[in-house]
């Protein structure tokens, strides 16, 4: 079994004319890699009608609904994170209730509001109540504000995790850009934050450093938008870990992070 905790799909109202091909490519590559479940999110309209990292309340339900439709179409392959914008608290909480009720298994926070901001607290509180994890898009060592997103870094996510010790957080794409050593240093003292190994980065030393910082028990496998790099990291892990430890990263830890019954093994 292999669970991809960081996947994305597109829909007809995204800017991409090739959205069907990209979705099909993910599923086909997943077959080859051996991915059992893609746990995915759709970030509103992906920039078409509102910014990718600041999706509007008008765009979010369409994206979430598109993902729910994909999950219905591929019930044995696709699960969903409900994507919300914490700047619209009432809308976000309503969307979380609606989409978790429809079968989604986690909450995706992109980069609409810094992780340290109190506006994230009600979202984390409902995550605790419903027993679902929060996947936070992270810019590893954000030294400044970058255009197009109000990104958070590992230290900022850990501050949020410290305020919500009973919520399980997933630090998004440790290989997704930025200085990952900074995130790993922050994570050592944040036991409720798990590291998603996705991202295009395949730096030599990345996986060794992840293992040294948080241990194999807090690593989750994922791909994000580069499945080749995800597969490469998984392949390399088989040389660093025992077979039992590899199973933890592939799926066993994820089963404990997501709500009971989220995956076929439960």
């Amino acid at each position, binding site marked *: 079994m292999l669970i991809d905790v960081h996947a994305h799909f597109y829909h007809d109202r995204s800017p991409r004319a090739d959205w069907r*091909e990209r979705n099909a*490519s993910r599923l086909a590559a997943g077959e*080859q890699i051996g991915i059992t479940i893609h746990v995915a999110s759709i970030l509103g309209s992906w920039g078409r009608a509102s910014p990718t990292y600041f999706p509007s309340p008008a765009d979010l339900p369409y994206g979430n609904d598109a993902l729910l439709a994909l999950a219905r179409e591929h019930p044995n392959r696709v699960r969903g994170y409900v994507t919300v914008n914490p700047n619209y608290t009432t809308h976000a909480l309503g969307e979380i209730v609606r989409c978790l009720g429809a079968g989604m298994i986690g909450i995706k926070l992109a980069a609409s509001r810094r992780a340290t901001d109190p506006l994230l607290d009600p979202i984390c509180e409902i995550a605790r109540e419903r027993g679902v994890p929060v996947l936070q898009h992270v810019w590893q060592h954000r030294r400044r504000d970058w255009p197009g997103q109000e990104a958070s870094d590992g230290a900022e996510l850990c501050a949020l995790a410290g305020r919500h010790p009973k919520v399980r957080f997933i630090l998004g794409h440790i290989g997704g850009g930025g200085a990952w050593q900074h995130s790993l240093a922050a994570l050592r003292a944040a036991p409720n934050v798990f590291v998603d190994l996705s991202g295009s980065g395949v*730096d*030599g030393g*990345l996986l060794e450093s992840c293992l040294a910082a948080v241990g194999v028990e807090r690593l989750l496998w994922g791909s994000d938008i580069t499945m*080749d790099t995800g597969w490469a990291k998984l*392949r390399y892990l088989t040389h660093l870990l025992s077979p039992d430890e590899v199973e933890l990263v592939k799926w066993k830890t994820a089963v404990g992070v997501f709500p009971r019954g989220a995956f076929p093994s439960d």
Partner: protein
Amino acid sequence: MRIDVNVFLGAYPYRRVPGTSPEAVLRAMERVGIDEAWVTHLPGLFWQAPPEGNAWLYEATARERRFQPVPAVHPGLPGWEAVLAEARARGAPVVRCDPTYCGLDPAGAEMRGLAAACGAAGLPLLLAVRLEDARQRHPNDRAAEVPAAAVRALVRSDADVRLVVTHADRAFVEEVHFGSTPEEAARIWWDICWIWGPPEDHLKTLLHTVGVERFVFGTGQPLRIPENSVSKLDLLELAPQQRAAIESENARRGLLH
């Protein structure tokens, strides 16, 4: 047969990278099935005189038949022609220059002079667009990435020069390839290490639009784990001869003569 044209030996100055010794790189090659590696002395790239790393490189490659040396040339330093001549005499498959790390204009007179000399010597010139993702570079690692315009200018600057460009992404490849004449484009080879696989399918697209014959197998190891380049090929539906072309034959036929 798998030839990795993009391999480094030695420590990286900006972060700790495991497995940079020749022995460790050989183990990584065995792990992923790489038969031959074209290796660069990594620390030397950051020295005032990168060719000072070439002596160590020649010693290391002389001890290991699976290594081929990729010596560094700095065309802004007096005597660089002798460095090039030595590379040729020692049978280096290519030479490299990373102009922005040398403080050189990537398409300036020194680089154009080097391109012409490489063309005359029959030695391909290798350039890396980047070594790391710009978002994660050390605050003091400020050398600019090589721009696509510089690659276009270099290939136009000499009718005989052949270029090997590593660490380029899809947009970079397309900009240079379709911004060149077919004759110019046929003198450029691209390593696959920085080109995305599915679901974006950049490599698949480029193999279709630019052509299989333009790509060579490269990993950027040990700065990058070599499993990545193998994985992106495994995710393609390639005929055996296409895969062989990328993994070894394009390098052998296009660069080793």
